């Protein structure tokens, strides 16, 4: 396998991993599968289009504002929608996320139409290639995605392992009843999980839009990252990283060595294979059986 192919796998895996982090955060803490995650990622990218338009002369401010908006968006989604479903059946919460996704898709078309936007062009940025090794090139935006994915995962790992709020989040995910009895404010923990989840999704959307623009079908990329989270195990951040790498490698191998038409199908084939052998994913926790 050529070094360029390995670089391609790393970039695609970084995209999938960055998107998957949000799926894992929400599921790990609240056991809710957020099926609006792709749409939230897309809205994050559109917010960058808006802030870039407002502050085209100050890209750093525009990027910071968009990133913070991603965090706030998650908190608002929790406060307005998901909070009221705490204690209800998980299925109800999942269905609400489906409805939220449809609503966001409609809203995005109403506000931004179906036109393709390029925030990088608004800033006057080019996206030139970078020679990372002899004969191996990736774009600046792709390099930024890889770097940011490493930073995000390292930060999340440190946050969950070594901070009080991180420990609270893990406790709430393991046993919410006991956690609440010990004084952990579940709503605050869940809200933080949603905030961080949409924050990482927004970062992914922003970087993807800087690389290749944003339009109304970007949400589909969120769906393509879903197998990575499931393959790794929905409650494991490390699993999401490994899952993203496996799915990306399989997809690129299909493009390069088999048939590019298979690239859409392969992630789901990998998913089926892994779930058939290990339904809780490679690094996920085996759940209590509640059906036969």
């Amino acid at each position, binding site marked *: 396998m*050529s070094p*360029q*192919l390995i670089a*391609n796998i790393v*970039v*695609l895996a970084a*995209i*999938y991993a960055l998107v998957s982090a949000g799926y894992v955060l929400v599921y790990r803490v609240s056991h809710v599968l957020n099926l609006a995650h792709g749409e939230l990622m897309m809205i994050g990218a559109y917010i960058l289009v808006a802030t870039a338009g407002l502050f085209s002369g100050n890209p750093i401010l525009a990027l910071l504002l968009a990133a913070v908006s991603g965090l706030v968006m998650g908190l608002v989604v929790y406060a307005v929608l998901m909070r009221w479903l705490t204690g209800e059946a998980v299925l109800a919460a999942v269905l609400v996320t489906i409805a939220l996704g449809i609503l966001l*898709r*409609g809203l995005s*078309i109403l506000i931004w*139409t*179906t*036109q*393709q936007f*390029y925030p990088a*062009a608004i800033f006057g940025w080019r*996206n*030139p*290639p970078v020679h990372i090794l002899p004969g191996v*090139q*990736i*774009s600046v935006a*792709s390099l930024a995605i890889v770097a940011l994915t490493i930073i995000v995962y390292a930060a999340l790992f440190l946050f969950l392992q070594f901070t009080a709020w991180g420990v609270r989040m893990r406790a709430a995910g393991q046993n919410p009843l006991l956690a609440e009895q010990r004084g952990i404010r579940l709503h605050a923990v869940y809200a933080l999980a949603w905030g961080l989840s949409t924050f990482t999704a927004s970062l992914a959307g922003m970087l*993807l839009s800087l*690389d*290749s*623009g944003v*339009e*109304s*079908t*970007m949400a*589909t*990329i969120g769906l*393509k*990252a879903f197998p990575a989270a499931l393959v790794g195990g929905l409650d494991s951040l490390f699993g999401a990283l490994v899952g993203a790498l496996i799915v990306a490698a399989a*997809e*690129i191998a299909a*493009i*390069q060595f088999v048939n*590019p*038409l298979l*690239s*859409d199908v392969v992630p789901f084939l990998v998913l089926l294979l892994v779930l058939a052998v290990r339904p809780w994913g490679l690094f996920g926790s085996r759940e209590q059986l509640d059906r036969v």
Partner: protein
Amino acid sequence: MRASAYLALVALAAASLLPAGSATAQDSYKIGVTAAMTGPAAATQAPVIEMLRIYVDRLNAKGGINGHQVDLLIEDDQAEPSKAAANATKLVRQEGVILLINSSFSSTYGPVIAEAKRGNVPLWFAGAVCPKETHPPKADPLLFCSTGFDFSVDIPVAVKAIKDMAKEPAKLALVGIPVPISRIGIDGAEKLAASLGMQAVDKEFVPPATADYTPFATKIKGADANWGFAYAPWPAEAKTFEALRRLGWTGQYLAYGHIQAEDELTRIADGGFEIFMANSLFQDDLPVHKQIRDAAAAGKYSFPPTYGTEGWLSGRILEQILTKTGWPASAEKVTASMSSLNLDTQGIRGGPLVWTADNHFRTKQSYRFYRYDPDKKSIVRMRDWLTVDVTD
């Protein structure tokens, strides 16, 4: 009592199946549109229909056609066949439209054509792929198409142009997406290239909404292609080219110029990215382009004015069809009017758009070739109207 209630119900049900037009006297031209206003095809289709609506609004503001308003009923099908079928049923059976317009993915055509034929209503494909049934020598009596692109004519023109432009033997990489029209076009280009002595060294079908186009570009570059040809929706065409350049590929690239092309050529700003298209660009600066720009501003068009050419042309076609139809209008009279269309395209196309009894596509198709010139920092025309006869 029970029998009369039953009869009332039957009468009510029967009445609901009748076209609205037969229940109430129509005082406007009712035109039905099923289009991908949202969903995966919306980036190309919604701008066409929105400009058509703006054109019709302007007509109505001036008193309509033959003294009657044009009622444009737009239904979103999201490029889904089931929704397109429901839209067509509603528009034909309930609204009693005299003309149906489809602007969506070709996968929606089957049910819409079936419904149009059941209702004996003419069906016009505007801004979407032209079905073969609109072509000569024996066009379907009810099906018409005005869309600028059509693979059966586009592909031979493009492949021969590459053959002409290539300074050394062309090693061609072909780029499409996995939908029928793009695949047929790319497969056809592969065969034609071989027959012209060119080597197709790679063929890529890039799925829509791909997260990273680099893997496809890597394969093309690895195949040592010196020319690329893309026949796909604009995002796949442009993003594959940009990924190629980021890998340091130095070849030439030709793609069909969809409605986004003018703004995109300027953004990409690469002299090696060439487009061919049936509609003229705004950089040609014709009076009709000023009209479109003014209409877009006045009608609060949601897209850049350069996206509006195909929709504006559709508006002019509709105006001529209905003017010739007269009043009172019927689907039969509209069909007759469409079968003898001869529209001056005012420079949007390379000549008039002509529909005849047996040709509901066009009698001639013309193309202009453009690229961005980095030295002039603007789009330049590489080849003026190249006209081909459309006979069969």
